[in-house]
């Protein structure tokens, strides 16, 4: 069976287990009850500020828990140059959290200095792959921590594309020699929106580069699926997760729940369902 070690150079040789996103409705519960959680993922941009409550809470969390940074606006795929102020603030936060790796999306979202604040899909071209890879290297060299790029959900495809999404992902990560944050919910959403086999995608990803896995829920509309992070994970996504774990091993896994956020316990219990598959993967490794 093809399987790589989950602790690898793209996640700082860590083996983090199952985490959840740190969200403000849960701050009080976490700080007062101190629940046992393997790790928290933070949205970097929420803490790239000068002071106040967010940083105060973060410092308290850091005293008790392991934290990994996940960004939403680096826009590796934008033709624009990297925003130096963004990088400087991100590095300050990296020093504060000691995150073993940082992740952001394989997408674009700004052009000519104007920001859409969205994760817009890439044209899957060699030109885009080359420019994106160059930017990832620039960010990694500046931050001095491993970088993992996440595949996004998409609702549009471009005429100019020269390859599939997974071929593009492979092209970028090989050129940049970086890690992958494999979002199996995003693979599922895009597979439904663009009619491809999601297992072909998961099977094509270089397993040895998978630093982390995201799971999440989504919303189904009449003609398309939207990546809303406001529902539990559905069975087809768990099946993709199972396959990803078979290939990549017991990889750091994180449940994203960003809207209509239920109680901490509900979110954590949903994340812990991943244990069913992780236990199987450990067993398979043992035999």
């Amino acid at each position: 069976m093809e399987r790589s070690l989950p602790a690898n150079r793209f996640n700082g040789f860590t083996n983090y287990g199952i985490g959840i996103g740190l969200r403000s409705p849960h701050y009080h519960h976490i700080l007062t009850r101190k629940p046992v959680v393997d790790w928290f993922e933070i949205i970097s941009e929420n803490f790239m500020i000068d002071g106040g409550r967010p940083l105060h809470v973060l410092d308290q969390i850091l005293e008790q828990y392991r934290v990994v940074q996940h960004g939403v606006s680096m826009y590796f795929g934008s033709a624009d140059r990297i925003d130096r102020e963004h990088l400087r603030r991100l590095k300050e936060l990296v020093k504060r959290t000691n995150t073993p790796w940082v992740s952001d999306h394989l997408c674009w979202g700004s052009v000519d200095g104007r920001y859409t604040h969205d994760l817009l899909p890439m044209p899957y071209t060699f030109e885009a792959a080359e420019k994106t890879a160059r930017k990832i290297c620039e960010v990694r060299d500046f931050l001095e921590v491993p970088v993992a790029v996440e595949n996004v959900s998409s609702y549009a495809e471009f005429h100019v594309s020269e390859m599939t999404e997974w071929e593009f992902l492979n092209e970028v990560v090989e050129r940049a020699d970086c890690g992958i944050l494999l979002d199996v919910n995003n693979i599922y959403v895009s597979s439904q929106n663009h009619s491809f086999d999601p297992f072909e995608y998961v099977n094509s990803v270089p397993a040895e580069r998978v630093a982390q896995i995201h799971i999440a829920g989504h919303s189904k509309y009449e003609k398309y699926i939207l990546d809303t992070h406001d529902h539990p994970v559905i069975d087809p996504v768990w099946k993709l997760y199972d396959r990803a774990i078979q290939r990549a091993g017991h990889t750091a896994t994180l449940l994203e729940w960003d809207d209509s956020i239920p109680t901490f316990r509900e979110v954590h219990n949903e994340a812990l369902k991943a244990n069913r598959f992780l236990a199987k993967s450990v067993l398979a490794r043992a035999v």
Partner: protein
Amino acid sequence: MNLLRLQRTMARAVMQPLTPSEHMSKRAQNGEAMSRYAARFIKPNDRLTSFERLEIYNRQYWWRLMSSLAEDFPGLQAILGNRRFESLCKAYLTDRPSRSFTLRNLGRDLESWLRRNPRWAGSKQAIVLDMVRLEWADIEAFDGAAREALRPADVRKSGGSNLRLRLQPYLRLLKFHYPVDALVLEIKRFNDDTEFLSNAFRERKKRKRVTAVAKLKPKTIFLAVHRIDDSVYFRRLEAAEYDLLSAIQKGKTLGQAVSGVFGKPSRNSGADPAQVTGWFRNWSDLGWFCALQRNRRQNARRS
């Protein structure tokens, strides 16, 4: 189509305002039919046309940014009403698209934009500007930097007219023509109180809030927007307090600040030393002073 051209083409459409029924416009900015514009770079599939696929992003852009502004400026929304607030936000975002990686900064230029485009506030320009300044100050006070506060004893010990005090970076001093702080507090109370209420009850409370806005009469107030234990507070100041603090914030020595405020005939003439001492004690109790700086020339003479 290369990467930059594709991204410019898509961004132009994504950032183009929605129609009143919240759909993508039928015409692109260049006058071309949007269906043709979209078909030039986006593939259709068996369920959605190129137009419909692009429209998903166009709507998400506007919904995301409008809800971000509504979250940051609830007072402005209360003054203008939902429809006028939405029109104003649309015009603002069209004129000044976001130039920051974080949505936190989305309303950064709203005040200056409103000064150049007064028609969006109509007859309520003065109160609208006051509210925008207060709500932006609220954001800045919430996550602004804090330096180590001087203890009251440190401030007393290091007295002297050449002393330069520094105020905390998060502290904002503002002068308003309307008591907009009361309205913001009313809105915050409304939001806290109605979190778990029925729609009917919310509506009744909302009507009361609208009445509160209508009743707001002009009145000059001076305000410090500050932070204690990670929460933002508004503190009303007397005119002389505001002037003194503003002078200190501008880097004046204590002597310069005090003589500037009380030394010439103005609204502040007639300082009561006991009152001024009390103000300094309060400010230092609130942690507003953060680092001492001796007058450089004075230090040079002493060394």
